[in-house]
């Protein structure tokens, strides 16, 4: 059986219970046209035909979705172009640097952590860090060799009452902060959505006043792996004594908001830290961070090994 036939039968299977009189040949013809002639990705082809059936034959979209995308765990996501649903907690939101992306970050369940992208054209309500949701009918995708899930127009995001547990695999890394990434230091966030403003502009709400915040996006390197970490105001204050208030004073004294970034660079770059947190791909979600110093006993261990 050809792929077109397989996919056609899958669609037929999904609408079986519904009282729909559509011929297999009709679906197959469209499927062949889309994937064999126009080389449309399979998931897009299925979606297009499904929409056609909803429109022309009164197929219930709700019912279709239920069957279309099985509820899976994050660890089961291994192949691109699968329609799935999952219950997960938003563990970290990042800045999106594309107007096409509404929100991007990491979600997790007890089996793992995965990157998610909510496309702007999906017109979804915004998700919040720390809250759990049912992500219905999302598409798996592979980007730079790593899996992610995409939320698009046919997806649905519903907040749920459960508190989804994250994987118990907390790791501890001692490494040096070797680089700060863009938009670190004293930043401004949009009052409406919390996104970081780039030159005073929120990518969704345009030019806004915004409020001040302190954060660092950094690269931690332990000689074996690199991790991207984000330090919030609490982490930064704990390490340097510079909280938001102090940062604003530094900016005011120097008539330059960048003075804060320079000060943080001087205090943190090239130093060693012990970081405890959850690992999701190359991201390490900081739960605790502290300065790390060696003890004499560690030196003795090495000398013993050399003896």
């Amino acid at each position, binding site marked *: 059986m050809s792929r077109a036939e397989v996919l056609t039968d899958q669609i037929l299977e999904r609408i079986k219970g519904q009282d729909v009189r559509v011929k297999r040949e009709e679906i197959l013809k469209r499927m062949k046209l889309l994937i064999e002639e126009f080389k449309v990705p399979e998931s897009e082809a299925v979606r297009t035909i499904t929409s056609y059936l909803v429109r022309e034959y009164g197929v219930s979209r709700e019912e279709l979705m239920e069957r279309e995308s099985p509820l899976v765990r994050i660890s089961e996501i291994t192949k691109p172009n699968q329609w799935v649903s999952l219950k997960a907690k938003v563990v970290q939101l990042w800045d999106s640097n594309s107007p096409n992306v509404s929100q991007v970050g990491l979600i997790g369940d007890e089996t793992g952590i995965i990157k998610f992208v909510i496309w702007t054209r999906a017109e979804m309500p915004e998700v919040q860090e720390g809250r759990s949701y049912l992500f219905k009918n999302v598409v798996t995708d592979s980007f*730079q060799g790593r899996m992610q899930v995409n939320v698009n127009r046919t997806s649905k995001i519903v907040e749920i009452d459960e508190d989804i547990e994250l994987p118990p695999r907390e790791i501890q890394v*001692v490494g*040096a902060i*070797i*680089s700060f990434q863009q938009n670190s230091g004293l930043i401004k966030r949009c009052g409406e959505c919390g996104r970081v403003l780039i030159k005073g502009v929120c990518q969704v709400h345009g030019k806004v006043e915004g409020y001040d915040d302190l954060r660092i996006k950094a*690269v931690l*390197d*332990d*000689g*074996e*792996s*690199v991790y991207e970490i984000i330090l919030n105001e609490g982490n930064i204050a704990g390490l340097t004594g510079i909280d938001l208030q102090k940062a604003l004073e530094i900016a005011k004294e120097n008539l330059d908001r960048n003075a804060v970034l320079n000060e943080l*660079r*001087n205090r943190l*770059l*090239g*130093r*060693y830290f012990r970081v405890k947190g959850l690992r999701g791909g*190359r991201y390490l979600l900081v739960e605790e961070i502290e300065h*790390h*110093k*060696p*003890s*004499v006993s*560690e*030196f*003795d261990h*090495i*000398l013993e*090994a*050399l003896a």
Partner: protein
Amino acid sequence: MIRRREVAKRVFAYELVRSTYQIEDESQPKYVLTPTGERANRIFSVAVLLDKEEIGADTNFWRLRLADPTGTFFATVGRFQPEALEVIGEINVPELIALVGKIRVFEGTSRKLVSIRPEMISAVDLSVRDYWVLETAKRTLERIKIMEERGNEDAELAWRVYNPDLEEYREMVRKAVTTVKEDVEVMERFEEEEEEIDFTGFELEEEEFDLTDLLEE
């Protein structure tokens, strides 16, 4: 396509300046192979900046001489490393610094030379140096073990290219660890004493209070 960020490897100066073999294959970025079989594109080091010299007047191109407990090495900073350049402009030598940089191998007059192109430079305190020595010692001993077992392709290649005397590299580690350990011992003792002083201070305060009472009488 965004490439995966290269890990900054830990290599002592003694080994670094002997790492003259560039791995010739299609892979990008380019790697050098160290005598104990490390494949490195970038390093992280904590060293004393002994000297900085501007090459030509107002070129803003600097040659740096650095030392860790095992030896010295060179680095060059120019306008393509703006962050490192800014720090170098302001720093006074000698100063202890942490640096991350790419390894470059070039032909000298009589032999191949190794130099670092720093991307990040930051003045740090001794405890950073101490941990770096410890970490670099551990990594080096791990590599020596793999060399002994001929445990991977890079180890095999290092044997063919350098045929290193591993005892020489063990000695390098021993030297670095021993030197720094003394400093760490002094620091730990100093910190213990500080704690004791705090405690004494607290007692004194109480005595002072008693004294005031006495004076009032």
